[in-house]
């Protein structure tokens, strides 16, 4: 009995995890005096945010609203251009294809990273000999500088001397131009990005699994639930807040990814693996003659995309909370 009551508390609490959920209509227990006092705990981070994020963000907005040349970037005095840079970007023939790639890249990366990460987390949660060591080892890809891990992937996927094509050849499949054909390049960078993202999902979801009290499984074992039922009945609902934050963070990190793609394909061939992030980088920093304005405009469009995702997240969280 005791286990069940605790369970329901835990579920309610985690439902309210809602890191970004609005205060909303306060639940009955939330009649706390002096809630402003809590800002004492938030003060360091607030000041930190204001000090270190406000200026770069302001710079990025300012860059996108003026017509910067290299000369005015250094010497100052760039004329105000309103939304011209945004117009330039939105009317560029490359805009829609690039946006599509961004959506495909992000959706595919998230789906695979999360599913594989979850599967591995569940698997390693079973405590078998060496499980902890192996789980730690899976994190090793994160220790590598991106230039090394991304280059290793282009090595493996090389059309002529890559191991993947050699392996395909052994089983009688014709070589695939992974990085050099417009049809495959996006798939290739997704594969590499999924690989890099799995450890993140594994670790966060694993910590989430550990937070689920063992008694709950014991209770359901008494009810004779199968493993699959346990997953959908207990693990999945209890892991929901952690899953939501993992997916949301994953979405933001994936939207931002540019170095993996840049190192592997430079967004090519002919823009076939370009995302908004690589496009922004190419315009602002990947050229002999930087075009800061449009580059920053794309960067801000990405921020807006993340903003929308954040709002959607909040809506879903709120609905769950009210339920």
């Amino acid at each position: 009995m005791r286990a069940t009551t605790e369970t329901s508390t835990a579920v309610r609490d985690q439902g309210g995890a809602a890191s970004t959920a609005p205060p909303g209509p306060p639940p009955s227990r939330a009649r706390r005096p002096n809630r402003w006092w809590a800002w004492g705990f938030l003060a360091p981070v607030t000041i930190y945010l204001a000090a270190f994020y406000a200026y770069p963000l302001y710079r990025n907005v300012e860059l996108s609203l003026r017509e910067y040349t290299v000369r005015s970037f250094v010497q100052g005095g760039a004329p105000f251009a309103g939304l011209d840079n945004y117009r330039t970007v939105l009317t560029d023939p490359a805009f829609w294809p690039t946006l599509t790639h961004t959506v495909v890249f992000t959706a595919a990366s998230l789906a695979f990273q999360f599913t594989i990460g979850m599967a591995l987390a569940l698997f390693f949660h079973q405590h078998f000999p060496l499980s902890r060591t192996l789980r730690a080892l899976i994190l090793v890809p994160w220790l590598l500088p991106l230039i090394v891990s991304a280059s290793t992937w282009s090595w493996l996927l090389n059309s002529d001397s890559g191991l993947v094509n050699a392996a395909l050849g052994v089983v009688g499949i014709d070589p695939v131009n992974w990085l050099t054909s417009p049809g495959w390049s996006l798939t290739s960078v997704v594969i590499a990005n999924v690989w890099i993202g799995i450890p993140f999902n594994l670790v966060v979801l694993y910590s989430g699994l550990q937070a689920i009290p063992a008694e709950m499984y014991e209770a359901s074992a008494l009810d004779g639930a199968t493993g699959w039922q346990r997953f959908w009945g207990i693990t999945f609902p209890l892991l929901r807040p952690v899953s939501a934050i993992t997916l949301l963070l994953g979405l933001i990190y994936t939207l931002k990814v540019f170095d993996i793609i840049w190192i592997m394909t430079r967004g090519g061939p002919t823009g076939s693996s370009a995302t908004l992030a690589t496009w922004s980088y190419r315009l602002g920093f990947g050229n002999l003659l930087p075009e800061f304005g449009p580059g920053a405009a794309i960067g801000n469009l990405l921020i807006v995309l993340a903003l929308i995702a954040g709002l959607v997240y909040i809506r879903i969280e709120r609905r769950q909370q009210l339920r």
Partner: protein
Amino acid sequence: MTTSTPRAWWKTGVGLVLTGLMLFPVYWMINVSFTRDQDMRASPPHLFPTNGTLDGYRAVLDQQLPYLGTSFLVGLGTVALTVALAAPAGYALAKLRPPGGPALSFVLLIAQMIPGIIMAMGFYAIFLTLGVLNTLPGLILADTTLAVPFGVLIFTAFMSGIPDELLQAAVVDGAGRLRTFWSVVLPVSRNSIVTVSLFAFLWSWSDFIFASTLAGGGDHQPITLGIYHYIGNNNQQWNAIMATAVVASIPAAVLLILAQRYVSMGVTAGAVKD
């Protein structure tokens, strides 16, 4: 701990295979680090570095060790600062729910979207004025921006799972909010502290853009810049680049494994709530 039944060992086997698959690209990196220039693009590729060379490692051991030290210091500093900033904030957002808290979380979420290179450019101006360009504290401060928003969000998600009863019990015992945070919330959040620390460490360890913009000119350069010894303006020495990555990951990987052991122990200890 589970007893080592045959079934458990069978799982170990599967675990080994899965880990092997995940780490195959890492193996490839090790393979390349031993490969001579003339075999690097052999077709079909050599699965093992037959006729291997130690040139890469010779170069690395001569030049890279000081960089490793810097990376460690920066990593540890980043972890400490990140946890110090993020844990109280996570607690407040999860349990104290102050007015305006959700807005702050939202800002944190968005803050992470600012492209790294723009952040780096902003920091350059700030640091130049503060005089912390090319210093360790400067780089640590910059690297924390990679992890603080993540830390706050993760702490919030995990700390809201702490039963209110536990906190109320502490209050009944006469503990203030600060004391409750220090002696109740933090100990039961050990698991999320380690998760956040882990990522703070990993992000600072593999950061390149801040290091290059903010510490490129100083005596304190991390390992990601050390690699650039082998990336000339026309030529790259790939065996040395890969060797650097190998040498750099070994101590950090050991640290990871130790940290994981500690977490598992800590969790079992912390799970006994009453």
